[in-house]
């Protein structure tokens, strides 16, 4: 008895996929029955000098010439290329092509798998992916817009004092963080705030906005930096913000060619003052805000003389890492010392640039700085 499976002719003609052989230039020399059934062509219609390229929809023909044929020439094998075959009746059949090129005799053998359902499924996946990419782009835009609202578009002009702020979001800037700063004029002079809400994302953003506007409101009725920060602490607790923050707050009043800076720290890194060759910390440590009902905060008066520069910054500057190495406050002091002759904007830019470069261009945390400089 001869088993049907042993009949190679039968196996070729009625295989569960279409077979098609071409010369190296694509001229079709042989096809099996299955392929004719899939495409609806009569025997002989495809092998009368037609090339496989002509069997493809036009767009796929370009893809064939620019990708499929070169790949085949280079590798002798190409698999799973999705194209549409034009049927005899003009309709299209989505297929997957596998092909092998044989040098001797020079022939390309194709397997043609009907893939209508698979293609529809892939189109759905593709649509889902495109949708996801659009949503991601929107979310990124939202994060950037929100982030921009954490810092003022411009800082006030203060006679006799240069001020500059700089901000660099973490990573590629597609996640909203919690660093902020602000500066505004009051009845007695100018006030500035710089802070860092713990965490990232929408919840941190809500607290950041709350902080910024609470500080502005408190500045009107509270007499001192510590009183302003205490008011913010009360609001964070009463609003059940659920996140703590660190901040530094300063009041500036002109005094001849000098300025008096009253500064208060709440769990925040000390601002640095550059005077002559010395760079030193200013302010006294205080409690983080949003955790405890009573916070210990101290106001410190600092004199700013012509030539002095003061740097306020968030921990994203000093906690940046290169491998295991921390950027650290020492490096920041040296940088401030070296750049103190520059204007406020130059110093702010130098600090952000160095902090970002230290982390190979992709900072892990937000970076915010404000610089005050009294021209010499």
């Amino acid at each position: 008895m001869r088993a049907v499976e042993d009949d190679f002719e039968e196996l070729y003609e009625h295989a569960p996929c279409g077979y098609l052989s071409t010369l190296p230039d694509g001229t079709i020399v042989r096809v099996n029955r299955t392929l004719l059934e899939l495409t609806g062509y009569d025997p002989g219609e495809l092998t009368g000098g037609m090339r496989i390229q002509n069997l493809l929809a036009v767009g796929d023909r370009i893809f064939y010439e620019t990708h499929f044929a070169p790949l085949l020439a280079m590798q002798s094998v190409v698999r799973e290329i999705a194209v549409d075959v034009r049927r005899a009746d003009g309709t299209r059949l989505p297929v997957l092509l596998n092909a092998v090129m044989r040098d001797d005799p020079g022939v390309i053998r194709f397997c043609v798998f009907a893939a209508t359902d698979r293609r529809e499924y892939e189109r759905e996946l593709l649509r889902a992916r495109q949708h996801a990419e659009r949503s991601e782009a929107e979310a990124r835009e939202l994060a950037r817009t929100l982030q921009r609202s954490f810092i003022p578009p411009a800082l006030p002009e203060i006679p006799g004092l240069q001020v500059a702020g700089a901000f660099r979001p973490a990573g590629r800037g597609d996640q909203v963080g919690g660093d902020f700063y602000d500066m505004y004029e009051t009845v007695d002079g100018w006030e500035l705030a710089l802070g860092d809400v713990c965490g990232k994302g929408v919840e941190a953003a809500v607290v950041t906005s709350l902080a910024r506007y609470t500080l502005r409101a408190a500045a009107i009725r509270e007499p001192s930096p510590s009183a302003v920060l205490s008011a913010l602490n009360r609001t964070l607790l009463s609003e059940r913000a659920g996140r703590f923050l660190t901040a530094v707050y300063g009041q500036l009043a002109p005094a001849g060619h000098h300025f008096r800076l009253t500064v208060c720290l709440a769990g925040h890194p000390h601002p640095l003052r550059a005077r002559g060759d010395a760079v030193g910390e200013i302010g006294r440590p205080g409690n983080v805000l949003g955790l405890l009902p009573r916070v210990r905060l101290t106001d410190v008066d600092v004199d700013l003389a012509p030539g002095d520069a003061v740097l306020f910054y968030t921990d994203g500057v000093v906690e940046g890492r290169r491998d295991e190495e921390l950027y650290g406050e020492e490096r920041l002091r040296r940088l401030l010392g070296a750049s103190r002759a520059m204007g406020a904007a130059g110093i702010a830019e130098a600090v952000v640039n160095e902090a970002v470069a230290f982390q190979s261009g992709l900072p892990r945390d937000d970076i915010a700085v404000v610089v005050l400089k009294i021209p010499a």
Partner: protein
Amino acid sequence: MSVMVRNNVRITGRPDGRPMVFAHGFGCDQNMWRLVAPAFEDDHRVVLFDYVGSGDSDLSAYSPERYSSLQGYAQDILDICAELDLTDAVFVGHSVSAMIGALAATREPARFGALVMVGPSPRYIDDEGYVGGFTAADIEELLESLDSNYLGWSGAMAPVIMGNPERPELGAELTNSFCRTDPDIAKRFATVTFMSDNRADLSRVPVRCLILQCSEDVIAPVEVGTFVHKHIPGSELVLMRATGHCPNLSAPEETVSAIRAFL
């Protein structure tokens, strides 16, 4: 970022030979020249590169603005010419690179001594009184085709290409990148290529020019090659026996001897 790294520039051949720059077209990368370029290494300084966005170029250097026209790609070539300080170079451009080379040569003629256009087309879409071979709808379809092969190329396709039972000697180094492109960049390059119209630039080509035209090339039909020949003053047209759009792969010997005869 140095241009050499950005464009994955590879230099072989005689350091003191006449420079010969090979440029790949839309679809693949400098490997398209692997059967042709070595034939010129004995007497030329052979320069191969990948356009930004293709092959092993630095993808982070890709900007949709810069590469929104063929001039952006021409700038890649001029950057490489400047970096290597090339003059009187033979530029061999396949497919869309033929026109990119023409634009580059027009902008800085001193860099180029001869232009070899393999399967050029100044415009792919039919126009009144002009046969490009395609309609705008066909090009839309190509973009869809790129989309259909998007899923495969990004993930599943790579390992399939890597393991190559038919020619194991090709190995991963080649198959890694060959014809594999960021799908988004591929679609942009396709759009820039197939929507381009450089017919008006042909008459300005300032260097000797050879046009290699394949028979039965669906991307650049014979009518198009003839059009290019007619509009580039003093150009030579060679009709090749090779079929298809990639004689550099399918008929390297014929391609090499046609270029040699011209030079």
